[in-house]
């Protein structure tokens, strides 16, 4: 860090906003194509019916819900890094805070699509809003899906505002160096930031308050999402461990996604001196913690199922381990609990290649965790006559691919048009340890 100066920080980061190579536009085009594919699949589904997916009776919820929980989960880690670690004054998070918060906003946006996608009559979704109507009908606030609406919209609002507010000084920096159209746009969005002392005071105060506001959301939003399942009577869902279990899992997968995003980012944008290996190493260490919490949650679930002597509970967990979906189950266990233990080795957690590879595996594992939870519990619940299997179809995969493309499309646009590392915060850390005024 000592080689960094204000000038080099600005230069490194602002350099990323230069005109991109043709390869960049190619990738963006491919991702846009993926989004169109997803949109086309969704339109097809709207016109023909949800039946184009693989859902059925008993498994009426398929990978749309899996993807929804997956993306919401990823979002939480961003807020953990940018809000909670800010409150803890963990300076090592500064280089990745901006990108992490961006990841949060885009992940919530992507996640927010899926409740619409999975609806049977999406054109009537406004029934969920408490608008005045002639029949004096209210939505059912007792339903976990209504909690979701409130939670996700709150999270999106707060995260977006937090993200935007936090970016203001950097936007002003870009404005000062920009010319032409970019200058006009950045003038607009930097809201007249001049860097006066008063503005900095308000900024840090506001940032702190947003962080404090966003912090409980990290716990509450995914708890609420987990209650989509825990408030159901389905065996394998109906358990109080879900809230902490899902939150831990969310942070686990989000941290892995942070690694997946940061490692190519620092390489392509030459951020090595800013997003150092030590930062990545800290993320990996946190992954060990969350992985162990998740592993503990799995063990608890299985133990309670055995201890309960409840035949139905025992069967659900036996089915997860040895039934039709056992491949997904074992991927989940290995990737989420065993793989992160590799990070105990200093060699592995400081090796860029290992970090990237393992982060991908962890995310695969976390996707399968949601798949296993959602699909296997309903595939075999109470009435054996009704048991059935589910397999996703091409349309569902098409929409899933579209969602992944949407996320990376937005992220790619972000990194080339907005400062992907928080210049102001990095400059802050330069002064750590040195006496400073006020």
């Amino acid at each position, binding site marked *: 860090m000592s080689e960094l100066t204000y000038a080099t920080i600005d230069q490194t980061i602002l350099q990323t906003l230069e005109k991109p190579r043709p390869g960049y536009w190619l990738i963006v085009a491919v991702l846009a194509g993926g989004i169109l594919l997803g949109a086309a699949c969704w339109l097809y589904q709207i016109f*023909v*019916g*949800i*039946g184009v997916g*693989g*859902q*059925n*009776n*008993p*498994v*009426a*919820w398929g990978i749309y819900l899996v993807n929804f929980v997956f993306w919401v989960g990823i979002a939480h880690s961003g807020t953990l890094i940018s809000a909670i670690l800010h409150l803890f004054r963990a300076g090592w998070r500064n280089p990745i805070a901006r990108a992490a918060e961006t990841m949060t906003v885009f992940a919530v946006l992507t996640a927010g699509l899926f*409740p619409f996608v*999975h*609806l*049977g*009559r*999406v054109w*009537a*979704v406004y*029934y*969920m809003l408490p608008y005045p109507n002639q029949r004096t*009908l*209210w*939505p*059912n606030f*007792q*339903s*976990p*899906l*209504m909690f979701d*609406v409130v939670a996700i919209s709150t999270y999106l609002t707060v995260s977006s505002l937090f993200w935007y507010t936090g970016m203001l000084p950097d936007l002003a920096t870009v404005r000062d160096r920009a010319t032409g159209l970019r200058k006009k746009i950045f003038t607009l969005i930097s809201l007249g930031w001049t860097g006066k002392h008063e503005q900095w005071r308000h900024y840090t105060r506001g940032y702190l308050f947003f962080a404090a506001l966003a912090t409980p959301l990290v716990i509450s939003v995914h708890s609420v999402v987990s209650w*989509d399942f825990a*408030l*159901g*009577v*389905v065996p394998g869902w109906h358990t109080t461990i879900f809230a902490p279990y899902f939150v831990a899992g969310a942070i686990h997968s989000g941290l892995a996604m942070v690694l997946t995003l940061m490692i190519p980012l620092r390489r392509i944008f030459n951020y090595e001196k800013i997003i150092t290996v030590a930062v990545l190493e800290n993320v990996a260490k946190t992954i060990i913690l969350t992985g162990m919490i998740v592993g503990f949650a799995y063990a608890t679930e299985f133990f309670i199922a055995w201890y309960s002597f*409840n*035949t*139905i509970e025992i*069967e659900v967990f036996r089915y997860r381990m040895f039934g039709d979906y056992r491949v997904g189950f074992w991927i989940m266990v290995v990737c989420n609990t065993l793989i992160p233990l590799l990070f105990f080795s200093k060699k592995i957690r400081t090796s860029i290649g290992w970090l990237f590879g393992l982060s991908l595996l962890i995310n695969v594992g976390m996707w399968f965790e949601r798949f296993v939870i959602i699909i296997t519990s*309903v595939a*075999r*619940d*109470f*009435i*054996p*006559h*009704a*048991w*059935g*299997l*589910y397999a996703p179809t091409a349309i569902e995969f098409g929409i899933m691919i579209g969602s992944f493309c949407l996320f990376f499309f937005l992220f790619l646009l972000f990194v080339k048009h907005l400062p992907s590392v928080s210049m102001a915060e990095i400059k802050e850390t330069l002064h750590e340890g040195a006496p400073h005024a006020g």
Partner: protein
Amino acid sequence: MNRRTFLKTAGVGSVSVAAGCTSQPEKTIYALVQAPDDTVTGKALWYASTCRECPAGCGVLARSREGRVVKVEGNPLHPINQGRLCMRGQAALQAIYHPERLDTPQLKENGEWRALSWPAAEGLLQEKTRAAAGAGAGRVRVLTEVIGESLTALFGEALDQWQSPPPLVFEPFAYEALKTANRMAFGVDGLVSYHLDQADLLVCLGADFLETWLSPVEYARQFKAMHALQANRKGFFAHIAPCQSLTAANADLWLACHPASEGAVALGLIRKALESGRGQSLPAPLRVSLTTASAPYTPEKVAHLADIPADAFDRLAARLLAAKAPLVLGTATAGSGAADVAANLAANLLNRVLDPELTRIDFAHRHRVETAAPRAEVLDFFKRLSPDTTDVLLLNNVNPVFALPGAGIAEGLGQPGLFVVSTSNFMDETTLLADLVLPVRMPLEGWDEYGGKRALISGLQPAMGSLTAAPGLGDVILRAAFGADPPFPDYQGYLQARLSAQGIVDGERQWVEFLQRGGRFDLPAAPARAPLPAEVPIAFEPVPVAAASLVLVAAPSIRFFDGRGANRPWLCEIPDPLTKVAWQTPLLAHPDTLASHALRHADVVAVRSAHGTLEAPVYETVGVRPGVLAMAIGQGHSAYGRYAQDEGVNPLGLLPPEADAVSGGPVFAAGDVLLTPTGRQMPLAHTDGSRIQHGRKIALTTPLQAAAHDDAHPPKAGLTMADFPLTLPLPEGYDPKRDAYPPHDHADYRWSMVVDLDRCIGCGACSAACYAENNIGVVGAQRILEGREMAWLRIERYLDPQDERKVIFLPMMCQHCDNAPCEAVCPVYAPHHSKEGLNNQIYNRCIGTRFCSQNCPYKVRRFNWFTWQWPRPLNLQLNPDVTARSKGVMEKCSFCIQRIKAAHGTAKNENRGIRDGEIQPACLQTCPTGALSFGNLMDSQSRVRQMVMDRRAYQVMGYLNTKPAVIYLRKVVQEI
């Protein structure tokens, strides 16, 4: 305007309205907003008629809305079915509204079909028959299904005009062996009927009387009258057959005997009976020959020949001899070989030994299907069929090409110079080979009479406007035979005059009563039966000990009967009661058989007999003996419309085509069958996720001793699955220590249903009625494989994991829980708890999140994955009282809320409350055994309130505290 003209106008009106619609015909199922005089739009008219889906002849009431029939129900006044109807009767409508129903006559010219006008077709028929009559005697032949006396008489008169012999009646199932046995043992040339309800012990050698045998709806009712728990007693039912049919699955004891050994078992029982001193009042010659014939059949020999446990046989014999009112029934519908003659004869003689007066056998009310000719006669007819002797062959609703493969029927029909006329409304295999297709009115559209049993006559009248311009069969024959000067202007006149002449209907008033009631059921019965024969020629061949060869047994299906039901989508979609496979025809095989051929469940095998081959997926089950393969008859059509063509497999081609020498009937089994794996697999479209209950409290049984005696120590109430108490969906079912929310505040009614598992036989009639009443979409085999069948009411079939031959059936529908998990989780209140306790699914409000179905522990909620199609004119069958749902919306059983609302309306008009039993949801209305009851739990005098006090009462998954309003009564099981 008289009622008939109105019906014609109304029918044409509603047809034209529906025909004018384009892509979504279901949007305008409410026709005739401005109704003609004499009717009120929205109010149904009910016409009595008779079901003609099988020869039983149950009486029906057709519910006619705006000139078209939307539902068929049993006629409560009819003595045969007493208001109930099987699934085939419910599905009769789908034949009338079938998309492939022919709407014009067709003439075959140079191998191509050309549409013809109705007058031209009738003219052609007249011309041909006249020419044939002129060319000589006997040149016009008629082959017909079983028809009523009047139509038979008309045919007779017409054929007289044409100097030809009377019509030949062809039914694929003609009970030749049973008729032979009746002739020999009772001196009766026909099919007697039975009073199962008066028996206390029923022994059956294979007769599938709950499915297709003689009169299934009637016998199902009678069976449960004797077999269901009453006053702490139950009749006993033992079934002896190689395959577990639905009837056998409802038996207390199923002895899986070797094929063709049923007669040996019966002889063994005769020997025991004679040994113990019964049969003293029999005529001496008979007693002597019986003793001689049965002497070799010791219990050891019987056990060996039939391969049944010797102790089971001994206990059965003991029970039989201890019974006060035993009744023995013969072999299956599809069984007429030599062994069947022996078995049926032995059964008849055993009845004579046990009950010399034969009090439980009814000789006066014989079944009409006895008029069907023996198979030998039909085969002989086709063998002799030649243009040299016959010019015109008229086929009335028969399909011999399908039913008699290997008998050269197709070649016979194709002979040049022979003019074949078919009156069928469908291009089935036989009609495709006709020269002229002249469709006639279907049963609900025209006039006729049919007496399913003697001493009663059941009328048919037009219950709807005619969908096509088809004439009635009787009218066609009248005009064809008598041309310009018929003795009666139409068949209706002929019918009326005949009934008048016979004294059945005397005057206009009685005629109207006849039509209103559906017939006359109190005709003078035949005088006392003739004395029974004193001597019976008994020659039994010992059954050869089992060789290593496989036997293929073909059995008629409760869904398709002889194959005629294969084109009705409901019958294809509602799965087979025992295999729960829909749309496909699996080959049932024992695990030992499969193991010895290195086969697994769902492997496709090639089956070869001396007469033919087929390929089918195997279904592993202990419901057949090792060494026996079973397959249902009825599917595997090569024509007959989109729902039947190329669906399933036809086993008839593997059976011997000849008729048995003794009975003149066919053998529905083939020996020396070879099984070859093909290496392919075929996923079976089965609707059951698992065959066993996995230790869950779903379908419970109780032994007879426990049900009969009070529990000295009733179980202490707890919170686990085993000891959770019965929690009625009433305030009394709420316990503040257990329930977070207070009870619902219901108004005067809290609707509830009680299902008596001791009465449910698993026939599926309720499911069919539900499809008909509630506009439920048919999804097809592929969607069933995907798990998307739409049945609101399904019959769950569970096997006992300790002994998989023990079967229990559980009708499962929406439980209308008081503490419904679905209601809490819908974000928009689409499942809404009504003030009468119903869980109402509000289609317009549903946005399709499907959380309700995920949260329903019973998985009774059905989602519309697509907008299901009703190819015109099937959409005319849709019930206007029930919304047709679009894609994206959840649906489920509503306790037939449209019927509840109708009852409310009637009660309000009459300024009273709804009476107990006034509301009959469709399922309950048709259940042949009365397994379902519905009523108001808040009325302390109601039937359901009394029934939930039964010690057998419990709730499925009750420990989840859902407080279901569907209460089940445990099935009472007894051992021999």
